[in-house]
């Protein structure tokens, strides 16, 4: 939330609770921000949507281009079945209606990175219809955001405007890559909600494996439709902010744009519908020159293709094969492991994290497992800048470490040392404990000697004990020091009390 926000409720959601919405206090009163997002998610696939060229990121310019992508005369599109499957699976993951009959249209406009002069997209009959996405709000509640539609379309190439003073360079490697355009209802009410929506959508896409969600590489891009209105009034005129490639920029752009529109209206002006760009350097949005000239896309069904008719049995098979998605997994972690929802949400945000946690928790105390994963493991991974797939400690070994604490082989404190060593070497905890001789000392005789030695060494503190029992802690420390921390703390405490008290 940016400054100037105060929590308040208002506006209507498509389901569930009314939105927790941030009103913006303007000079003339409160304004409500209304946001709808259009996300372009690159379909995870080897080849392009309508050509056999590769999709790998970062290749030399124009080396992943087929004559089809470059729109050479007489070249024709043939659709990639896997891309269709990924779109359907994503639709199913969003609880959306799958349209068994959909149509590919041509969206006509001229631009150098659009070789045919039209983009093959889906206009009136998309492959996926209405669905929903559940936001987990900071106050622990949830809210449903409506998904209007999802359709398949081609990506454009890349125009580089900064390579030459008088020229724009065009790389068509990206041209023709399959995209899923996922459009939300105007249900979002703050930059914060927009951020939550994006993170949740990204999480679902990654669970499904239909998009890698990599915003840096442009696999996930976002257009924001932003308007403002007085609470309860009809929607205002919206502006579309194009091509935002990070959650942070999305939130910053929305904040800026909302304030710009409010200032404009409060100054007696009117918002005009336009496409704008976000300048992350300046932190402001500005009109997009190339889009100024009124465009007329002249959509019509692509005569090189036929309507896409899906086999209902095939769709049902895909539905049956869907993985457990974040919401379901979170609910299960709460129910099955008795975790607090907040912890369950952290542990299920990434499929890999959830999988790691479940291996650690298997047959052990889930709370201890959660603490180790979210605490020491995340801490270590962050410090090393690694993600969980690259964790140097296998979940089975973290589990074994927890077992060593449970069966009294080592103390919780020693365990931290062992874990640090495991991060270094990836060694099994038992091996480290043995090599370094860290087994907990539970031999009463040995501990009694250490206790006796400690008392003998500090008669003054012994004398204080009756008046000030806190010195017990001092003696525990002395004994642990004498045993390099290996003495069983419970046993040390008992023996000290007996001898001092006696």
């Amino acid at each position, binding site marked *: 939330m940016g400054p100037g926000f105060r929590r308040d409720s208002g506006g209507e959601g498509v389901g569930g609770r009314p939105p927790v919405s941030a009103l913006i206090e303007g000079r003339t009163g409160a304004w409500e921000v209304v946001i709808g997002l259009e996300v372009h998610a690159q379909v995870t*696939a*080897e*080849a392009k949507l309508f*050509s*056999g*060229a*590769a999709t790998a990121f970062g290749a*030399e*310019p*124009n*080396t*992943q*281009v*087929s*004559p*089809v*992508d*470059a729109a050479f005369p007489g070249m024709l599109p*043939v*659709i*990639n*079945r*896997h*891309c*269709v499957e990924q779109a359907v699976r994503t639709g199913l993951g969003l609880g959306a209606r799958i349209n068994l009959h959909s*149509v590919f249209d041509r969206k006509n406009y*001229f631009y*150098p990175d659009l070789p045919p002069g039209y983009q093959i997209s889906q206009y009136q009959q998309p492959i996926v219809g209405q669905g929903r996405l559940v936001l987990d709000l900071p106050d622990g509640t949830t809210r449903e955001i409506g998904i209007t539609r999802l359709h398949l379309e081609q990506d454009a190439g890349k*125009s*580089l*405007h900064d*390579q*030459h*003073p*008088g*020229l*724009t*360079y*065009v*790389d*068509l490697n990206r041209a023709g890559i399959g995209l899923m355009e996922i459009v939300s209802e105007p249900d979002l009410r703050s930059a914060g909600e927009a951020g939550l929506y994006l993170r949740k959508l990204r999480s679902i896409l990654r669970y499904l494996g239909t998009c890698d969600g990599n915003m840096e590489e442009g696999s996930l891009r976002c257009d924001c439709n932003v308007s403002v209105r007085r609470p309860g009034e009809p929607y205002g005129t919206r502006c579309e902010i194009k091509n935002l490639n990070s959650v942070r920029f999305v939130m910053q752009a929305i904040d800026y744009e909302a304030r710009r529109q409010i200032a404009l209206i409060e100054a007696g002006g009117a918002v005009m519908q336009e496409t704008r*760009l976000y300048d992350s350097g300046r932190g402001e949005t500005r009109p*997009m*020159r*190339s889009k100024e*000239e009124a465009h*007329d896309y*002249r959509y019509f*069904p692509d*005569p090189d*293709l*036929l*309507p*896409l*008719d899906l086999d209902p049995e095939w769709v049902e098979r895909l539905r049956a094969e869907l993985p457990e998605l974040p919401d379901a997994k979170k609910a299960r972690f709460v129910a099955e492991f008795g975790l607090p929802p907040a912890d369950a949400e952290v542990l299920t945000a990434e499929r890999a994290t959830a999988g790691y946690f479940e291996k650690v928790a298997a047959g052990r105390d889930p709370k201890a497992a959660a603490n180790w994963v979210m605490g020491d493991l995340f801490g270590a991974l962050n410090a090393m800048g690694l993600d969980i797939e690259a964790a140097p400690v296998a979940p089975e070994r973290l589990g074994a470490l927890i077992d060593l604490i449970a069966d009294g082989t080592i103390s919780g404190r020693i365990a931290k040392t062992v874990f640090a060593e495991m991060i270094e070497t990836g060694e099994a905890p038992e091996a480290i404990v043995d090599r370094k001789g860290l087994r907990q000392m539970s031999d009463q005789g040995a501990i009694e000697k250490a206790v006796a030695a400690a008392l003998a060494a500090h008669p003054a503190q012994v004398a204080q004990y009756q008046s000030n029992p806190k010195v017990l802690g001092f003696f525990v420390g002395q004994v642990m020091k004498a045993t390099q921390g290996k003495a069983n703390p419970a046993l040390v405490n008992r023996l000290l009390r007996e001898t001092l008290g006696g």
Partner: protein
Amino acid sequence: MALNKEEVAHIAKLARIRLNDAELAALSGELSHILTWVEELRELDTENVPPMTSVAAMRLPMREDIVTDGDCRDAILGNAPQTAKGFFAVPKVVE
């Protein structure tokens, strides 16, 4: 249906074809003539008639997700009027 010069100019802009005044005038006549000729379609009742999507009575065929093409930059750039450093080059665009 008559198209005046301004309307023809708008369409020509959409189609990215530069036309001078004389051409606009001539085309507004020719295009109006053609559009008036096709007017006759209106008399036909097409209520509830589905538009033809394709005469090919078949399902949309699909490919497998395999890389079979690309990696042929020379062939792709070989016919281009202007290239630089492996890119197509066009007059600078201001976003």
